[in-house]
């Protein structure tokens, strides 16, 4: 009986299958443990990330091609209209910028008078979002620059209208970022009108943030602009985050139910800006002080 069983199985037996599986499962568990507890495996991740990069490029290519096709086949009248619009916009922006320069100088002067730390302009760089999807339950995106370009974990990402998210995993040529609408993301903000500080937590919905820690009597109303407070350390202060949408005060609950709508169009952006905030620049090559000094000199 034993013989016949052995004979019928032998040709199909894969040698040491069970042992190999067990070993691999064990390795997986060790890897997961190391990856979860401490970030020991960043180098490994980066190495494999380089191998995945060409695949990401290929997946991204059709969309890029589509965008290129759209650009090259736009009609002349459309282009002229676009040009007119952009020119008008530029004029407006320039006018605003003139005032901003003056205000910035004034601000720096006042801060110098108050002996406060100077506020400096942040260094930015444009990155493109790659059309690569990660996980539908996490609001993630992949951008096309990585540690090769100086990106670091925790770096802030904004678009033209407001804060988008922050870098969580830096690869060599691409990086993964988490959006502010992710359920695991919380962002220290303040109300622009009165400086009321709180925390904006992602809800998992792309167009809604939750402000769970505001007491019922907090001075907040619909239409208030929330800006980054800079307290968390990851985001530089003063970037718009969201506009308060609904405020529901429930008398028997300790906290009010406040929702806000992100200023940035989180699901529509294609180009984003990465911010090298002043403190990190200052640490690296001392740029931070260079921009403030001239104003102080003027003053004296």
């Amino acid at each position, binding site marked *: 009986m034993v013989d016949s069983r052995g004979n019928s199985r032998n040709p199909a037996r894969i040698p040491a299958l069970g042992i190999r*599986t067990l070993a691999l499962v064990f390795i997986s568990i060790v890897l997961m443990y190391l990856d979860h507890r401490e970030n020991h495996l960043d180098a490994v991740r980066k190495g494999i990330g380089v191998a995945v990069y060409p695949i990401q490029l290929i997946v991204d290519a059709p969309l890029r091609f589509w965008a290129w096709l759209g650009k090259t086949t736009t009609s002349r009248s459309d282009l002229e209209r676009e040009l007119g619009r952009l020119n008008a916009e530029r004029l407006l922006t320039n006018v605003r910028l003139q005032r901003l320069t003056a205000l910035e100088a004034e601000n720096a002067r006042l801060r110098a008078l108050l002996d406060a730390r100077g506020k400096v302009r942040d260094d930015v760089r444009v990155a493109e979002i790659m059309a690569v999807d990660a996980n539908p339950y996490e609001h993630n995106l992949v951008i096309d620059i990585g540690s090769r370009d100086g990106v670091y974990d925790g770096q802030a990402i904004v678009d033209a209208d407001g804060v988008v998210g922050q870098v969580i995993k830096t690869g060599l040529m691409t990086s993964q970022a988490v959006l502010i609408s992710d359920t695991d993301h919380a962002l220290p903000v303040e109300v622009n009108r009165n400086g009321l500080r709180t925390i904006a937590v992602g809800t998992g919905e792309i167009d809604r943030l939750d402000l769970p820690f505001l007491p019922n009597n907090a001075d907040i109303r619909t239409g208030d602009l929330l800006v980054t407070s800079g307290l968390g350390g990851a985001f530089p202060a003063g970037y718009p985050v969201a506009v308060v949408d609904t405020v529901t005060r429930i008398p028997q609950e300790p906290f009010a139910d406040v929702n806000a709508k992100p200023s940035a169009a989180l699901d529509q952006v294609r180009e984003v800006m990465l911010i090298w905030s002043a403190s990190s620049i200052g640490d690296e090559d001392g740029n931070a002080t260079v921009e403030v000094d001239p104003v102080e000199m003027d003053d004296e």
Partner: protein
Amino acid sequence: MSRELASRRLPVIGTLFVGLMLSIMPLPDSIAVFRPDWLALLAIFWAMQLPRTWSVGTAWIVGIILDVSYGTLLGQHALALCVIVFITVRFHLLMRVFPLSQLTATVFALLALYQFLLFWINGVASVSAAAATYWAPVITGTLIWPFLYMFLSGVRYRARTAS
């Protein structure tokens, strides 16, 4: 050797490559939750057909690549793929003689196990991912399996006759 390459390796590497592309292709959020686990389906098929060439080791490597491109815990998909491929290889002779309907039912069970392992690891590592649609890929994967099976059999037949 080159004959072996053409008939045994090329189709597998090619389909795995396309599978990885489909796995990270951008889809609208409402559809993305229904995205089948392409690589799990492919791994089941190739482990069933060529268990000596493509077995748990390959599945593990594919899983690690998937982990890196998804940004999940390193080893999560690798472990899940490894386990379902182990079961497939263990019963590959049986699965080969199954009629397609029965095979599809088996694949359903394997996919459910795969998704459960991922879910379980998420739970242990306290990564939040709890929604009713979490199990949707199991359904879509099962629905797609018969078509994928016929397509891949065609690919395999062609690769074999061509060499």
